[in-house]
């Protein structure tokens, strides 16, 4: 490296970081299933964001669709037919994507935030603090998800925000345990000792040394938790605990089931949301696996 005009050390560091990200992206691109997952996700997110342009939100409400034929199959009323109230399935599908994705992502972020904070704090500080946090975590783990979610939803009332809260509160123990385990090994590392010997405070150690080294685990875990959150939302909506005024894929399944779509053989009612959920969950899983591969072995190879 010639020293014509040596850029400042900070700029060098940042350009190195940008290059590392670019390399990670290049590595990710080589992972075919990961790219497929990413494409699906991109399409789903695009569709959800463009919902106002693609379908009239008023079409979700039965009162505006009385002119439509009920139970019309896709050939008679396109593109996806109508439900028992004459509402366009397509409209519900597009708008439902918004709720499913929003809840999935938001609930996951909430769960990962709580889980990370608890996991890092418990692992790092140890002692009675850790004992208390871990007992709390185990308590949440032991309680079955569905009854807890139902009770919480019943108490808080049906709305999108509450669903996010419920799923977040019931999902954080899983990442918390994983992260704590990782932190336990990390805090014994010699470079943590060295930093402490330099005079670092606990906050410095946690944010500068522990957090960057668990970030890989957190990211991988996040992409694998989103599908779980989406499915949880689906379940809760199916049980009637979701927001009654907004369509979601789970709600579509619930209403279809209640209205007898199976006996009517109205496959166009339950197939689209079912396939939609399946594809999105699959997409997140593929991306998550690809990310894990990209983040971990690269680290190993680089540090060889």
């Amino acid at each position, binding site marked *: *490296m010639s020293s014509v005009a040596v850029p400042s050390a900070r700029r060098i560091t940042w350009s190195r970081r940008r290059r590392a990200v670019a390399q990670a992206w290049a590595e990710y691109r080589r992972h075919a299933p990961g790219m497929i997952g990413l494409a699906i996700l991109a399409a789903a997110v695009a569709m959800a964001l463009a919902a106002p342009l693609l379908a009239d939100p008023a079409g979700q409400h039965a009162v505006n669709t009385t002119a439509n034929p009920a139970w019309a199959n896709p050939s008679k009323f396109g593109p996806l037919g109508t439900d028992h109230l004459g509402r366009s399935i397509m409209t519900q599908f597009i708008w439902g994507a918004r709720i499913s994705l929003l809840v999935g992502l938001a609930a996951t972020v909430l769960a990962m935030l709580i889980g990370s904070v608890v996991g890092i704090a418990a692992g790092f500080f140890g002692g009675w603090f850790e004992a208390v946090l871990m007992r709390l975590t185990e308590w949440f783990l032991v309680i079955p998800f569905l009854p807890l979610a139902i009770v919480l939803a019943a108490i808080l009332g049906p709305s999108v925000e509450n669903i996010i809260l419920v799923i977040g509160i019931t999902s954080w123990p899983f990442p918390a345990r994983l992260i704590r385990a990782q932190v336990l090994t990390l805090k014994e590392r010699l*470079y943590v*000792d060295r930093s402490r*010997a*330099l005079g670092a405070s606990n906050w410095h150690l946690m944010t500068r040394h522990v957090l960057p080294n668990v970030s890989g685990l957190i990211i991988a875990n996040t992409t694998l938790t989103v599908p779980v959150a989406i499915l949880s939302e689906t379940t809760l909506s199916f049980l009637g605990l979701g927001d009654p005024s907004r369509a979601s894929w789970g709600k579509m399944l619930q209403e279809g089931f209640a209205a007898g779509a199976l006996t009517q053989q109205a496959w166009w009612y339950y197939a689209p949301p079912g396939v939609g959920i399946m594809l999105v969950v699959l997409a997140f899983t593929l991306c998550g696996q690809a990310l894990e591969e990209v983040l971990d072995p690269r680290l190993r190879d680089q540090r060889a």
Partner: protein
Amino acid sequence: MTAAPLLEVRDVRVEFPGRAGVARAVDGVDLQMRAGEIVALVGESGCGKTTLARTIVGLQRPAAGEVLLNGAPLRYGRRALRAHRRAVQMVFQDPTGALNARQTLYEAVAEGVRIQGLPGDEEQLVAEALSRAGLRPPERFFARYPYEISGGQRQRVIIAGAMVLNPSLLVADEPVSSLDASVRGEILALMLRLVRETHVGILVVTHDLGLAWNVADRVAVMYLGRIVEQGTTEEMLTAPRHPYTRALLSVVPEIAHVEPQILTGEAPDPTRIPSGCRFHPRCPLVASGEAQRLGIEERCRGEDLGLAPVPDAPAGSDQVVACHAVAAATMAASP
């Protein structure tokens, strides 16, 4: 010695509770060091030397005793510890593990500067520290990561990171044992140069007597949590008095003229420290019957003892030894 010594360790004890009982890793150690001095703390694994080193740096709290820096005892509040770390720094055995693989070398050295809030231009301080540690031109190393440089260079980065704070005492825990043999001399030469240039004191923890001969002014030998003999390097390594030191010296391969005294077994673990002189179960004097002949065997088995001056040492020497045989000779020698 009129002024307070740079470092004073007073009757420090460090204990680790465990399933098998309490491990007394450091069991009453007194040690003093002056500025600009290199002291080698020698012993085998399990003797407590690393624990003592960490206690001096403040990474470990003693169960009893005090660590004094320039006469002031070390307190364990946050601010007191941070101030202590300005003055006492550590160099680690495994330079690869001691560097966060995700940090650039610049960040690794600048970390201390930032934590301690040192005044001045950070970039300049880092460049100077790297340069002084032998990494030149320092700018070339700023953006590199630890995996891109060799083991010896990583150790230099660690040393730079420690010296950037301008400490008065450097504690080096096996600084070269994980490096290639042909590279060790360079790091040791660097340490000598640092002492000459900055008058820093260095406590080198090692199991390598050859290293002590190479760079140390004084040597202290530890066994099972205690210092059993101390003195200048010349005294300790050419005329040791303690049977353990003698045995250690005799098995060093370079010493061909001394019959090796290979001790049986390994050092007992610190949860079961023997009664009396803690070395007596493995002591060649006891095993060969010499102790009985001298009439001290009972004391060796039953009476614990501390460091005492050596009887026929030259005037001005402060070599001390914890051995009943030597003490008996002292009694016999004094009128």
